[in-house]
């Protein structure tokens, strides 16, 4: 019990640091790929500090409520995962926190926010099946939904569910809102939708959103790490290395591909999920 509390506390304290560093790394690497020097590594922290220091403008009083709910539920979801909770419950909590963010955008009644909200919902519709399938994949591979038990598995799950990993990496691009799937809001200057989801969020509200995104990124990388972790302590090193590789791969994809239309995203993600994860599941069920 004490271990669980410690793990959760560590996640709550360290995840924003780690998430901020990851984002900083992403921005530096992106800049280098484009032949620029790029911002300092700690730039995301400067940004959030500034946002917290600024005045907050809101469109209505319930907007901030939804953003705070988003932050709290994201932290809750991550704590559930790193505390070793039930994988399916983690994902249900995750989709709930996302809905909170979408509602924050809807509540503003702004055209760009509403556009972002609809697109964000579509993105959720794209990755929701895969996220549930990942949980089922772990269950089929190692016989449990509990993260704590999965982390102590005999063999890394990736041996049994490589298809799931591919599918998950694919939807990770959607989840991180990287190009070609940066529909709802973007790190780049896509001005036709301004900032989409976050258009009408400002000041400390925006800072909360950014911090929630950091927690979310760490959670997602934690799930990637789950594919490689087993009883063997060496596997933790492998998992960390793989996380870094996949994260940098996302940065590369972000810089290489132009944005696609939403229907392309929907079709391609569902097809990829069906082909990789679906086939994987089918084979596993035949083997069992």
């Amino acid at each position, binding site marked *: 019990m004490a271990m669980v509390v410690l793990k959760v506390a560590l996640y709550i304290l360290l995840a924003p640091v780690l998430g901020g560093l990851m984002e900083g790394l992403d921005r530096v690497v992106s800049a280098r790929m484009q032949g620029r020097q790029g911002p300092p590594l700690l730039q995301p922290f400067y940004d959030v500090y500034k946002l917290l220091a600024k005045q907050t403008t809101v469109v209505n009083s319930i907007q901030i409520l939804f953003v705070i709910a988003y932050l709290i539920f994201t932290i809750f979801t991550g704590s559930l995962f790193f505390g070793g909770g039930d994988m399916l419950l983690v994902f249900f909590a995750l989709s709930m926190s996302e809905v909170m963010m979408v509602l924050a955008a809807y509540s503003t009644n702004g055209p760009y926010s509403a556009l972002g909200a609809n697109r964000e919902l579509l993105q959720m519709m794209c990755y929701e099946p895969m996220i549930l399938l990942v949980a089922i994949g772990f269950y089929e591979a190692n016989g449990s939904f509990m993260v704590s038990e999965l982390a102590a598995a005999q063999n890394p799950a990736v041996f049994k569910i490589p298809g799931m990993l591919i599918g998950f990496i694919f939807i990770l691009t959607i989840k991180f809102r990287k190009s070609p799937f940066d529909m709802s809001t973007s790190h780049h200057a896509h*001005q036709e939708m301004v900032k989409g989801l976050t258009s009408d969020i400002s000041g400390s509200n925006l800072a909360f959103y950014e911090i929630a995104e950091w927690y979310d990124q760490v959670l997602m990388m934690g799930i990637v790490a789950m594919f490689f972790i087993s009883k063997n302590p060496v596997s933790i090193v492998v998992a960390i290395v793989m996380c870094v590789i996949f994260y940098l791969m996302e940065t590369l994809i972000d810089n290489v591909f132009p944005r696609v239309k939403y229907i392309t995203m929907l079709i391609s993600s569902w097809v990829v999920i069906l082909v990789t994860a679906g086939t994987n599941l089918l084979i596993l069920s035949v083997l069992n």
Partner: protein
Amino acid sequence: MKISKSPWVLHYDGSSCNGCDIEVLATMTPLYDVERFGIINTGNPKHADILLLTGGINAQTAPVVRQLYNQMPDPKVVIACGICSCDGGIFKECYNILGGSDKVVPVDVYVPGCAVRPEALIDGVVKALAILEEKRVKVKESMKQGYCTVDYSKIAVRMKAEDYDPATQYDEVLTEEALREQAEAKIAQTAKPAPKPAPKPVAPAAAPKEGGNA
């Protein structure tokens, strides 16, 4: 940590010939790479700290600039880029040009040039950062007094050349209570004759308590 480490910029083209705009965009390219200083071109006033204006202001763009300025959260600074934005430039005498950006919003830094050089522009932004830091202290004080600046009533006024009175071009400072009263009065005016009894006429909003962030 200073907040000036992450200045986010909103760029608006008043009525420029696009020369300055090209130069503004040039600062983002790998050659000048302003992201080194954490500068991001956001395109969204609600995220921006610095309003970069190019070109003179005309009757059509004036309310837009006003509105963008009002939607930016405090502290904020305005930079006029290029001579047209500073005082109207060669278009100054045109029938539709009101003049430089300072006819509509309070400008903090003037960066002359036709077109403005990227180096000058970056220099102007650095100057603006110092002002930003000063303003932040002021905002903090005013927040302590329990006031929030409000632009509910002045947000989209249609402007003509003669409407510009420098005395009224800044936000009033209102309490939230006054804001609500204003909104209710407006609703009472615009509401359709609803079946229920009309709400009592609300007294006009409280008078401005102190000067804005001029």
